[in-house]
């Protein structure tokens, strides 16, 4: 039974109000709260004692959505989840994941997840993952997601990950392997505050001819929080890859950004850009001349940056 808190978490992480349309699996406190398969999208539990689900999407499935949110409202709960996605050829689907933790206790709540995608030829996947934590206890909210994607010829994935406040510690690992004519795009948005720590380790391997990869990471570190970014782009064939990391640093925060591009082919074209800086004074002044207070101006700049 979903409580009011559960419903709020679901809205935060998956924009869900009420029962989702299409295929879904709602995981609550390590159990299955609700599950629904459709004609084209089948969701089954993992076998062999592993926790998690297997999602199989039939070839040619287009315009369908699959929601697989996770919510944790028990303080002290720790889980390791494996979700495997098998996406057939010529699909065009939206997958919305995400994890929300409501921790009012003193113990650490922790969700570690491994998502593995096998995307068939010429399929397009849009994958959104939001992480959100709340609670007034002293217990920490911890999330360590791993996402591994294998793209076959002509396949593509647009991955959007968002973590705005609330997660005390996160270690994120994302890897996309692109075959011929495949495209992997990671758009990351992250805001840490207080004493939060976040590490994001990303790797796009451009294996096939004409593969394309792109990492667009924007983050804000406030207060005493710390962030570490390690985006890597590896070109093993004629390919194009672009890594772009932008961070705004505030208060006494610390940010390290270590982009890497590695070419193992003379036809690999790889670019990286990384920047860390505070909010520019003239940006704040400009918005104040438009009638915003200094606080409203800062908020507007951060919201725009992380939009």
């Amino acid at each position, binding site marked *: 039974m979903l409580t009011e808190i559960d419903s709020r978490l679901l809205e935060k992480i998956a924009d869900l109000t009420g029962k989702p349309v299409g295929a879904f699996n709602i995981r609550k406190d390590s159990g299955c709260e609700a599950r629904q398969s459709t004609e084209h999208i089948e969701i089954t539990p993992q076998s062999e004692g592993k926790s998690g689900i297997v999602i199989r999407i039939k070839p040619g499935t287009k315009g369908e959505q699959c929601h697989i949110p996770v919510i944790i409202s028990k303080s002290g709960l720790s889980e390791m989840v494996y979700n495997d996605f098998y996406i057939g050829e010529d699909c065009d689907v939206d997958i919305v994941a995400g994890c929300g933790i409501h921790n009012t206790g003193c113990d650490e709540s922790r969700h570690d997840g491994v998502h593995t995608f096998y995307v068939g030829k010429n399929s397009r996947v849009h994958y959104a993952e939001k992480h959100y934590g709340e609670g007034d206890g002293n217990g920490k909210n911890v999330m360590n997601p791993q996402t591994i994607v294998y793209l076959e010829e002509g396949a593509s994935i647009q991955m959007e990950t968002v973590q705005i406040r609330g997660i005390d510690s996160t270690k994120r690992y994302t890897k996309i392997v692109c075959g011929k004519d495949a495209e992997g795009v990671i758009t990351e948005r992250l805001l840490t505050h207080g004493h939060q720590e976040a590490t994001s380790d990303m790797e796009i391997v451009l294996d096939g001819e004409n593969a394309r990869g792109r990492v667009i990471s*924007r983050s804000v570190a406030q207060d005493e929080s710390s962030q570490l970014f390690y985006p890597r782009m590896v070109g093993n064939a004629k390919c194009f890859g672009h890594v772009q990391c932008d961070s705004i640093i505030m208060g006494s925060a610390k940010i390290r950004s270590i982009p890497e591009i590695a070419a193992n082919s003379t036809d690999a074209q790889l670019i990286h850009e990384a920047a860390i800086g505070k909010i520019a004074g003239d*940006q704040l*002044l*400009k918005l104040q*001349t*438009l009638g915003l207070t200094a606080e409203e101006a800062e908020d507007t700049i951060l919201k725009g940056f*992380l939009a």
Partner: protein
Amino acid sequence: MLELKNISYTVSTPEAGEQTILKNISLTIPDSKLIVFTGPNGGGKTTLAKVIMGLVTPTGGQIFWNGEDITALDITARARLGISYGFQQPPRFKGITVRDLLTIASGDSKLSKDQCCRYLTQVGLCANDYLDREVDVSLSGGEVKRIEIATLLARHSALMIFDEPEAGIDLWSFARLTETFEQIHREHTASMIIISHQERIIQLADEIIVVGGGELRHRGTTEEIFPLIMADTLGSCPVLNR
């Protein structure tokens, strides 16, 4: 009406010691007037304009806006009282669109596309091409400058200050811009202070104020002041004077 009384601005640095940027400037600008500040680079024009907006705090003197002493008010408070300022080099914003900026400027969270379109057209931009674009490095200097001016138009403020609005703008857009200034002036909807060296803009002015060496050197109509500017320009060049 804007009144500046004995405005001074002095800065002190370890390298250069004490430097006076503005010297005891007093000035009254009546409603609905178009005033051009002109004069040599480094003469104090931009500092004087920034003092009016609250971007620079004067070390001496007072500022009155419609009779109210606003010397101690911050930028936001002055903006809300109806003073606006177009930067010479406007900042860029990652993730903030042209529509966002116009919406903030107008104070109307439901600002329509038609209204946005009107402001952008007044500066020679087409809304369809620009509304959803981010005001970031993908825009040219001239485009950012014109968007900056459009944000001032969206504020409908009673006093608009433009710092070199022509800088970086192509001739065609500049012609459209001067039409906009002329229209505002004709409709008596706002006072304008325009910092400019452009003859076309200088000719629109009710009054030209030549600022140099931190002082108001000359004041008068275009007919009175323009010959002085030309004489100053040639007079100060040792090569042309040979």
